[in-house]
C-alpha cells in the first residue's frame, strides 16, 4: 500500500437545483487527518461521497497523482476506502466474511478471495483485536464492536485514503474515544490519509491535524483547531451558545455548551 496525498480541485456537488457543495479546493497531505465539521446539511457528507465517487460531482480528485475520475470502479476502490455514517450491517453475516468483503476490489470478477486476501483479513482482525469475534454473527455485536468491524472492513481494502462519515455518532463517549484512538494508531502505523466528517467539535479538534468548517456548502473556516473553533464563529454557524477553553498544558481546544441562546 502506498502513501498518498489527496488533491481536491474545485470539487462540487449538486442535487437537482440544490448546490450541496460549492467548488472545494484543498490538498490533504499524505498521512494527514483532515476533520470536516459543520452543522447538518453543511455539505460534509457530500464532500466525502464526492471523493468516494458515490454522488455525481464536478471537479477533480487525485490520489497520489492518480485522477479518480474515469478510473475503473475496482481500481478506485483500491485507492479510497469509505465508512458510511450508518452502514448497513447484515445481522447474519460473520465478522470474518464481512471483513473479507474489504478484499472485493482485489478479487477478479469471477474469482474468489485468495490465501493472501484471507491473510490480510486475518491480520486486520488481529490488529483491531477482533480475533475472538471472527466467527460471531454481526447481529450479536454491540455498537462499539460493530464500529470496529466496519473499520476493519475498510482497512482490509488497503487503500491509502480512508473516508469516515461521522464514524462515532452512534457510540457512547468511551467507544467514541476508542474508535478515534484506533484510527490514530492505524494512521500512524500505515500512514493512511484520513478525511473524517465529525459532529463532536472537541473530539474533532483533538484528533484531526487540521479542521475545515463548512456551512451551506461553503468553507467558512479552515486551519488548526484553536483557529477554527472560536465561540463567536460557532455561535454564528451552529447557532449555539458555547464557551471555548484551551488546555494550558497541551493546547487541546475544549468546546463547552452553555445555557442560553447565542448572541
Amino acid at each position, binding site marked *: 500500500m502506498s502513501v498518498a496525498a489527496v488533491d481536491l480541485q474545485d470539487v462540487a456537488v449538486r442535487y437537482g437545483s440544490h448546490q450541496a457543495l460549492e467548488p472545494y479546493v484543498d490538498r490533504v497531505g499524505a498521512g494527514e487527518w483532515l476533520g470536516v465539521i459543520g452543522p447538518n446539511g453543511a455539505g460534509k457528507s457530500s464532500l466525502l461521497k464526492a471523493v*468516494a*465517487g*458515490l454522488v455525481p460531482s464536478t471537479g477533480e480528485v487525485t490520489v497520489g497523482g492518480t485522477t479518480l475520475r474515469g478510473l*475503473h*470502479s*475496482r481500481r*478506485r*476502490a483500491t485507492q*479510497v*476506502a*469509505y465508512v*458510511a455514517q450508518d*452502514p*448497513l*450491517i*447484515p*445481522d*447474519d*453475516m*460473520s465478522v*470474518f*466474511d*464481512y471483513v473479507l*468483503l*474489504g478484499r*472485493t*476490489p482485489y*478479487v477478479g470478477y*469471477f474469482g*474468489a478471495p485468495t490465501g493472501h486476501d*484471507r491473510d490480510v483479513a*486475518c491480520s486486520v*482482525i*488481529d*490488529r483491531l*483485536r477482533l*480475533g*475472538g*469475534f*471472527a*466467527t460471531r*454473527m454481526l*447481529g*450479536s455485536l454491540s455498537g*462499539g464492536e460493530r464500529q470496529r468491524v466496519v473499520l476493519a472492513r475498510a482497512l482490509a*481494502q488497503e487503500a491509502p485514503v480512508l473516508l469516515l462519515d461521522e464514524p462515532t455518532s452512534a457510540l457512547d463517549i*468511551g467507544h467514541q*474515544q*476508542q474508535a*478515534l*484512538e*484506533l484510527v*490514530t*494508531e492505524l494512521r500512524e*502505523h500505515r500512514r493512511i490519509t484520513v478525511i473524517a466528517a465529525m459532529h463532536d467539535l472537541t473530539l474533532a479538534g*483533538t*484528533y484531526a491535524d487540521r479542521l475545515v468548517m463548512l456551512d451551506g456548502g461553503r468553507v467558512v473556516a479552515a486551519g488548526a483547531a484553536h483557529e477554527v473553533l472560536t465561540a463567536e464563529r460557532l455561535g454564528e454557524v451552529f447557532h449555539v451558545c458555547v464557551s471555548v477553553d484551551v*488546555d494550558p498544558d*497541551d493546547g*487541546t481546544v475544549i468546546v463547552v455548551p452553555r445555557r442560553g441562546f447565542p448572541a
Partner: protein
Amino acid sequence: MTRLDDELHVTGAGTGAGDVPRTSTTPSPAGDPADGASEGAAGATSVLDEADRSERRRDVRWLVSGLAFLVGAVVVGASIGPAGPEWWRVPLALVDHLPLISLDSGVSEAEWNIVWQIRMPRVVLGGLVGAALSVAGAGYQGVFRNPLVDPYLLGAAAGAGLGATLVLTVGRDATVGWPIDPVQTVAFVFALCTVAVTYFVGAAFGGTRSGATLVLAGVAVVSFVTAVQTFLLQRNLDVVREVFQWILGRLSGSTWSDVRVVTPYVLVAVAVLLLHRRHLDVFRVGDEEAATLGVSVQRTRLVIVVAATLGTAAVVSVSGLIGFVGLVVPHAIRLMAGATYRRVIPLSILFGGGFLILADVPGRMLTSPAETPIGVVTAFIGAPFFVYLLRTRKVV
C-alpha cells in the same frame, strides 16, 4: 476483550492527545514481550485459520448433502407412481442403465418405458423448475435485499399468465395443428416483455438508482397486467377453467421435449447466478458500500435480474405458476446452512430441485377427481416445514 478495551481506554484517556506509546501496535509479528496482546494476536490467527477451515468443511458437507438429497429425490420420483414396476425395482433398473454397469433388475421393457418416458421427464422437469425458481428467488432477494421478494415479483408470472390467457381465448382453434404449443412460446415472450416493461418503468422514475423503485414498479406493472388478464377472462368465461388450470401449475404430462425447451434457459440462469454468488454477498452490505468496494452495482444487478428472469420465464411458461418454492426454499437454506450466498445459491439449486420432485409425488397419487396441482402440494408441505424452521432456528 474487556481487557483490551480497558487498555485502549486507559491509553486514550490519559492525555486526550493520545501520544502515549502503544506497544501493542508495533507491526512486527513478534511484538513486544512486555505486552501480552501479541501472544493473543498470534493465537487469534490460528483460531481464525481453524475457524476458516471448519467453515470450508461445512461448505463441502452441505454441498454433499444437497447432492445426496437431489439424487435421492430423483430415485424416489422415478420409483413411485400409479402404474409400472414394483417401486424397489426401479432404482435397480436405473443403476442398470448407467453406463458400464449391468445388473438384473427384473424390469421389463414396457415397464422401463413407463419409467423412462412418463416418469423421468416429469422428474427432470420438476428438478429444473424447482432449481430455477429457487435460485431465481435467491438472486432476486439478494439484489433487492428484500426477504419478501419472489421470482414473480417483476412480472414474469403475470406476463406469462396474460400470454397464456391470450392464446387460450383468442387463438385456440386456429393453432390446433401447429407443431409446437403456442401457449408456451407466447407465455415466455410475454413474461420477458413484462419484466422489461417493469425495468424501464423503474428506470424512468427512479433511474434504477435503488432496488426499491424497481420493486414498486413491479407491483404497478403486475397489477396492470393482471387486470388486463382478468378483463380478458371475464369476456371469455368458457376458457376460465383451462386458464385456471394453467395458472395453478402442473408437471403432469411433461415430455422430454418440455425438458429440452427449458433446459438451456435454466442452465443459463443457474450458471450466471453461481458465478455471481460472491457479488450477492457484497450486495448484502448495501448499494453504496458495494459501490465503494468496486462493484458496478447497476450492471451487476441487471445481469443477475436478467438471468433469474430468463430461468423463471422459461419454467413458468412450461409448468405454470408454482408458488412458494422461489420464496421459501432460499430462506429455508439460510436458516439451515447460513446466509452466505456462497452456500445459498448452490444449495437452492440442489434442494429446490429435489424439493419440487418430491412435492410432485403425492400429487400424482391423489388423482381423483383431478390431479392435485403441485403448487398446492408445495405449500402444504413447505409452509409447515418453514414454520418449524422459524421456530427452531435462531437467525442470529
